């Protein structure tokens, strides 16, 4: 292909450069997600700890299991982020900022949703748990679209399937099992997967899996 002028006046070399820049931004966005994927692992463990506390030692302040574990999760997330910021310099491009925005807003929305439901004791409703999974799926799906990351898209679909399953099964036991699977296993596995991919710098570039 010759180096002719394209319709908008850009030469082929310029177009190649633009595509390379976009690919680099997407790859950096995925690396950014990978660098922060310890947060997924942390929250999976937080949920697991709360469920275990509530189930196995209910007499030991069982009704405070969720509020205490969630508060500890928030403190650990902020502490981890501060530590991360002091240890490494971030290079944040537009895509990274957008992904960060998605997760920041998701955290805020989920905080509002969970806190209000807990204070008013509506957190037993099926639609509450389904709503949590749908929200997580939404954030993963938007991030997957920004990063063209098929694996994250799959995770979004798994969360959404969990939300639908809760309504369809319509039972306390099924809701509990789905919640446990999605909030603990899927969250931890995706976090570990992203952490495993992250050190392979450039490994994300152009990768579709």
């Amino acid at each position, binding site marked *: 292909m010759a180096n002719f002028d394209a319709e908008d006046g850009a030469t082929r070399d310029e177009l190649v450069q633009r595509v390379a820049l*976009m690919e680099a931004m997407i790859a950096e966005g995925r690396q950014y997600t990978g660098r922060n994927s310890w947060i997924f692992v942390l929250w999976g463990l937080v949920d697991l700890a709360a469920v275990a506390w509530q189930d196995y030692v209910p007499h030991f302040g069982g009704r405070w299991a969720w509020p205490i574990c969630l508060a500890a999760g928030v403190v650990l997330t902020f502490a981890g982020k501060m530590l991360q910021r002091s240890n490494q310099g971030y290079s944040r491009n*537009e895509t990274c900022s*957008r992904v960060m*925005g*998605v997760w*920041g*807003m*998701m955290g*805020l*929305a989920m905080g*509002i*949703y969970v806190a*209000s*439901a807990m*204070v*008013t004791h*509506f*957190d037993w*409703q*099926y*639609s*509450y748990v*389904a*709503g949590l999974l*749908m*929200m997580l*799926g*939404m*954030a993963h*799906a*938007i991030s997957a*679209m*920004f990063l063209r990351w098929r694996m994250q898209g799959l995770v*979004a679909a798994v969360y*959404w399937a969990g*939300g*639908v399953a809760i*309504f*369809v099964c*319509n039972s306390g036991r099924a809701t509990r099992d789905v919640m446990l699977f999605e909030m603990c296993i899927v969250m931890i596995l995706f976090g570990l997967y992203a952490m495993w991919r992250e050190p392979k710098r450039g490994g994300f570039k152009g990768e579709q899996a």
Partner: protein
Amino acid sequence: MTNTEREDGVTRDELVQRVALMEEMIAEGRRSTARFGWSFVLWGLVTLIGIGWQYLQPHLHWIWPVAIASGFLIQFIGIAIHRRRGRSCSNNMQSRSIAAVWRMTGIAIILYAAPAIVTHTIHQIAYVAAIFIFLGLAHAISALILRWRAQGVVAGLWWAGGIATYFVPENNVLTIYIAEMFFCMVLFGLYAMWLERRRAATALEQHHA
């Protein structure tokens, strides 16, 4: 500041060009949202009509499926007309991101609402709160990407509605629902449409001048 090469090889002119490009992309992203302002108005009206219809004929079970199906039909016709007139949304990064946010939100809400309607779970407080929180989340992400304060306010209103739903007596939830649909859907949609019309008029004036 002179137009000298900086350490990273980027001149001041290039930086100015990049900033201008980013500003143009943000402005185009807002215009894309404004072009779809009718969509907010449509869904606000569909919901308000559904509520009114159910109030008048509470024994009918197929009101919501009919109202939502009609909404989709009108939406698809509207998009087809938009495309035929060549007014579909532009293809820059910001516009694509906003489109991704709303598409994923749409899928999440459909996947959440459809099984809830089928299994008769929509009377749960957490269901209504979750819908408000989802919509607030989408507006918040969009507002962050487009640096659009008005949309940020709308996100805040949706979230405030989500919180209020948990705290007010159950018979006041419908009032909140109607208020949210009117202010955050219909009024925001009309505001966006007014912005788009004003921009189009200014562009026409500049063209003639």
